[in-house]
């Protein structure tokens, strides 16, 4: 199914002040794949994610999402098929209630009114927070906020889910719930994270970024065994693998 392919070709990005953000990024992610995007702070993970949702335009090269090259014309169609979970759920939950927040995307994408309530509740049930529908986002705990943020994204039924640090600031139990939830998703997943244990559990493939360019791309297990590579990119062997040694 070439339909849900995510492809970056010769991608370059330079910030307005001259800092190089991305330098010759190439990859191809196929339908249903789960890919972890790892790298030290400031390596360019978030910059790459912003390109994938069309919030930044590459200075050189292009991105293909599905059948479309990503440009202004297809932006809406692309955003319809991708969902992004931001690092700070407070940025993502801007409406007065959880319900409104989940419904926001549905209304914008023209889902008929009669179906909205149904779809909202379904999305909330999937992430297990349907009891929070009428609450205000500012009254939720960190874990609940994250769950709702994920619900806002899956409600619109995207083919590709992009996540920025989904497990940050979560308590261990919430993190476990999140991992179990993500395991059930059949979407194409691209997850930028520092949580290598989570990456190990969810993603079969990993892309390592350092200083704006890809330095490794391959099977998660193999890459995480390469201690030299991990050290070079400011990472550390996942705890679960350290125990195996």
């Amino acid at each position, binding site marked *: 199914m070439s339909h849900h392919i995510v492809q970056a070709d010769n991608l370059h990005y330079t910030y307005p002040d001259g800092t190089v953000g991305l330098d010759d990024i190439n990859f191809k992610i196929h339908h249903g794949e789960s890919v972890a995007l790892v790298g030290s702070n400031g390596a360019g993970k978030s910059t790459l994610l912003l390109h994938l949702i069309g919030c930044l335009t590459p200075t050189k090269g292009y991105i293909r999402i599905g059948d479309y090259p990503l440009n202004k014309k297809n932006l809406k169609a692309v955003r319809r098929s991708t969902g992004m979970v931001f690092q700070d759920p407070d940025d993502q939950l801007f*409406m007065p209630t959880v319900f409104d927040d989940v419904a926001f995307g549905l209304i914008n*994408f023209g889902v008929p009114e009669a179906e909205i309530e149904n779809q909202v509740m379904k999305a909330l049930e999937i992430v297990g927070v349907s009891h929070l529908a009428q609450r205000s986002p500012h009254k939720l705990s960190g874990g609940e906020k994250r769950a709702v943020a994920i619900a806002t994204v899956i409600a619109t039924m995207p083919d590709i889910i992009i996540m920025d640090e989904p497990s940050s600031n979560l308590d261990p139990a919430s993190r476990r719930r999140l991992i179990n939830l993500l395991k059930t998703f059949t979407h194409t997943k691209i997850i930028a994270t520092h949580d290598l244990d989570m990456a190990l559990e969810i993603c079969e493939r990993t892309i390592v970024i350092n200083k704006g360019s890809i330095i490794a791309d391959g099977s998660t297990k193999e890459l995480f065994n390469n201690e030299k590579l991990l050290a070079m990119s400011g990472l550390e062997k996942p705890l679960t693998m350290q125990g195996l040694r």
Partner: protein
Amino acid sequence: MGNLQNNLFDIFYMDTLACSKTWIHSLDPRAKVLTTLLFVGIVVSLGKYEISILIPFLLYPVMMITWANLPVIYLIKKIIILMPFAFFIGIFNPLIDKDIILKINLVDITNFITIMGFQNSTGIIEISGGWLSFFSIMIRFSLTVSAALILICTTGFDSVCLALQKFRVPSPFIVQLMFLYRYMFVLIDEASRMARARSLRTFDSDSKMKFSLFVPMIGQLLLRTLDRAQRIHLAMCCRGFDGHIQMFRKMNFGVSEVLFILGWSSVFIICRLYNIPFNLGIFISKLY
């Protein structure tokens, strides 16, 4: 920075109150907004020397507080905290307006001396217009403030906004109000974290800060806020935002809402047209 945190908790608490489930809470917000506006309008429309006619209006806050199960002490405290402002403006009235316009014959009501112990001359208590208008201001102040607080504590800010939207308040303003309310919590939290970090590294007990510290702190907060706005916009765009925010919300303006408005407005109008305490007094003095 107790100030910041306290304000946050205060709003938080009112928000929680607005989530309880009494029949007042479940009324359509439009009914409550209308009634509140009517109440404030009528109370304020009364003459500046009126006191007795204002008293029956207390029925509205009393009933609403009981019906909606609101914490009386908390609300009274909140009103008292706000008092000084009206007090400072009002207190000039007795100083300037010294004309006696109320005379109370002691023979008639000896039992009220202790309450109204002002200028006592020849068996008649004289009260100046200034004092009358001062008390009138204070009572009016308490009534209108309590009405606003009750509205928020029984309805919640979001629902008030939605009601305003139904009243054709322009949507950019409504969206603005909702965003402000949503991010108020986030930003006050952020501001108090910054303030706490500052106070941990300066060793004065004073909660206020120097100007030279204040500017970079506010500036920093502002920069963070601008960044946040950008991120929120991204998040909105990712979910198909194209400049319009629509809400899907059911509102039901039914019989009970109509009855609520009609009931209260007739009470207000009766209280406005007939000085109930006055007539009651006449009735009693006739008996006596």
